[in-house]
């Protein structure tokens, strides 16, 4: 089997896999946010940036190639990732202590794991009204990180295309597919993949926010780097290194 190296270790890969897919399958973690194992790589958050033969590239979209030398866990690259996390926090309105997603949020978990301890940049504090119109689902644009997972899930899995993006640059934002533009008037359903896939607290099911108390949530128990592998499809043979 062909292989490349990731921080000095050989990683086998199958044709068509990207560096991130092969790494996860081999039980190696590279930080990522907009990538989800069930969807085609998107390549927008750039948290998965690595050095590939000395040149920066997004691991989630970079096709694996025999002999590639990948550096991921370096101070330089982790510094870059910390800045990207700071940027995502600065761009929206993320008040973790009052967010139902706290402890289950990928952005927050990445921030902790990477050691983001300061704001770093002036926050934008954008004015983004929430959409509370739906009886069962919250849509809080303040926390949306524009990963497009809900957009992809709603079209590809749910077959509804409830979400799309509008605007450009820093004005880019999520829009809802209904005449009124409100979630209540859309075709969304509580069991939609689009609802469960949101990595942050932007799409939330109502009335279950604190069913699991803070302190006992997923990333309260172990950091994201130790858990992301559980989500990745991993044939046991490779995962066990056997």
């Amino acid at each position, binding site marked *: 089997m062909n292989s490349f190296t990731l921080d000095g270790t050989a990683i086998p890969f199958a044709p068509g896999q990207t560096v991130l897919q092969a790494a996860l399958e081999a039980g190696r973690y590279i930080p990522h946010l907009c990538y989800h194992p069930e969807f085609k*790589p998107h*390549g*927008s*958050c*750039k*948290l998965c*940036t690595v050095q590939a033969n000395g040149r*920066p590239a*997004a691991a989630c*979209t970079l*096709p694996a190639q025999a002999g590639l030398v990948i550096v991921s866990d370096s101070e330089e690259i982790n510094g*870059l990732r910390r*800045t*990207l996390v700071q*940027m*995502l926090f*600065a*761009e929206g309105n993320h008040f973790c202590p009052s967010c139902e997603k706290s402890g289950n949020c990928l952005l927050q978990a990445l921030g902790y794991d990477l050691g983001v301890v300061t704001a770093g*940049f*002036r926050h*934008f504090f954008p004015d983004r009204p929430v959409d509370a119109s739906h009886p069962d689902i919250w849509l809080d644009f303040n926390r949306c990180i*524009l990963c497009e997972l809900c957009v992809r899930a709603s079209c590809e899995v749910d077959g509804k*295309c*409830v*979400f*799309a*993006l*509008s*605007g*450009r*640059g*820093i*004005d*880019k934002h999520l*829009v*809802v*597919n*209904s*005449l009124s*533009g409100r979630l209540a008037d859309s075709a969304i359903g509580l069991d939609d993949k689009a609802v469960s896939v949101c990595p942050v607290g932007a799409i939330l099911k109502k009335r279950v926010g604190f069913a699991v108390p803070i302190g006992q949530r997923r990333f309260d128990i172990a950091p994201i780097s130790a858990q992301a592998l559980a989500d990745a499809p991993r044939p046991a043979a490779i995962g066990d290194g056997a």
Partner: protein
Amino acid sequence: MPSAVDLDTLLARHPRRPESLLQVLCDIQAVHNHIPADLAVQVAEALAIPLARVRGVIGFYSFLCSEPAGRFRLLFSDDITDRMAGSQALMSALCGRLWLEPGKVSEDGLVSVTTTSCIGMCDQGPALLANGWPITRLSPRRIDTIADLIRAEAPVADWPAEFFRVADHIRRRDRLLNSGPMVGAALAAGLARGPEGVIVQLERASLRGRGGAGFPTGRKWRACREAPGDARYVVGNADEGEPGTFKDRVLLTRHADLLFEGMTVCALAIGARQGFLYLRGEYRYLLEPLQAILAQRRAAGLLGAAIQGRAGFDFDIAIHLGAGAYICGEESALIESLEGKRGIPRNRPPFPVTHGYRQQPTVVDNVETFCAAALIALSGGDGYRAIGTEQSSGTKVLSVSGDCARPGIYEYPFGVTVRQVLTDCGATDSQAVQVGGPSGACIGADEFDRRLCFEDLASAGALVIFDGRRDLFEAAHNFTEFFARESCGFCTPCRVGTAMLQDIMAKIAAGHGTRHELDQIAQLARVLQQSAHCGLGHSACNPTLDMLKRFRPTFERRLKTLDFEPAFDLDGALARARAMTGRDDAGAHIRSEP
């Protein structure tokens, strides 16, 4: 007006499929000055696209809007050259005359005035677009007249014709600009050479792309020809969005036949049946003249079925309009836009030569590249190769603007020095030249002997000249605003980073900057260069870094302090309270601890 044109008429102009979305929206915008909500719904139904996606496309392109933007919509070109020629004062004057706030629509829905990115009239600015039509050489008198015409509600079509005159300003001609009318000669030569023969000549000519990146054109055409696919496409990139660049505008005006001939030669070489010219929305005024030339070429058997009598050689060209988005000049974003979508650069690989328009093999080349390719098909590659430098064969058409006596179009063999161009255009006391627009490089007077070619200063050929009077901080500030305005927003580093950079530059401009801000600029530059998704993000910090490196005092002069960084100026915040209470004793001051 609006009611006279119903949606079915507009829809009938384009194939009824999702790819037509942007073109249909451009037509609706032209008729209604916005996209009325009910029409957006009907378009979504007619083209079988989710309504949210239609809204997403409207929200992406700056010329489209979902709310009425006034029966008169005036967009001032906000290029640095327009500013240097006084555009900001003229815009304020116009707003003053119309009792209008920039960016707002007047209460009666009559008019709105705001800015837009460079509209490609840098050699004859300040300029604006009035309901999409360019007005050049703005002066206080022209502004007064425009205000009167708007208040009299005179249709833009009835405004004085000389307002809309766009000069070509061709100052120096070489091979390309000296070529005569091209109606079939290059195509006949190409047919005689055959597809392989054409590509071999391009390779012998060592032709490299003129859009900036300089990719070998022969190699691109060959790769496309050899890529498996059901159909192949030729795309002419006439998006020309890089501020300071306007040579494609002149080529489209004067040498459209040569361009279309080059695209048709490309079709022959790669085996394409369909071509597109992606024309930036700012050049909408060229649409009808270009359509007329296409019609002539069809009538002359140079487009359509069995071109020049060759059975099986069928090819035609459609013109697609952009709608105000610089990023659509990037080839994969351009293809997305051609497909009617938001112009977001794709993940690469795969590249357009194998997976382009509708995922089929596609050649995207700059307007000037196709023109040069036609000349090479006609006369062969060896003669072309003899011109220019080792790695940059042939000639380059330059757009020259800024502080000089004769701004305009200059064609030189590759390798000409910046100094030579400055002499020829009558520039004196030049302190800096921005080569290749905001994405390019800023060079100072000690570097004017550098050469314009791929070995040295590689670019699409824009030179903006700054003389000794100019404050280069202003230029850097303008460029950061440009990138923030034009970032497509797809990737985190560019979407947020360009906005942060704009924020920081505004802070420095307002006199609140410290060394901390300069450090943050360096930090953002690293992040953008390392992790942005496309060339826009990679280069967004370049002008600021270049100018910081070469003209640091112009930044430092503005800093509040070089040595420490007050997060918040406590004493300054008390100034108003002191003024109100009339106190200025020690107790009314807070001392910051250094």
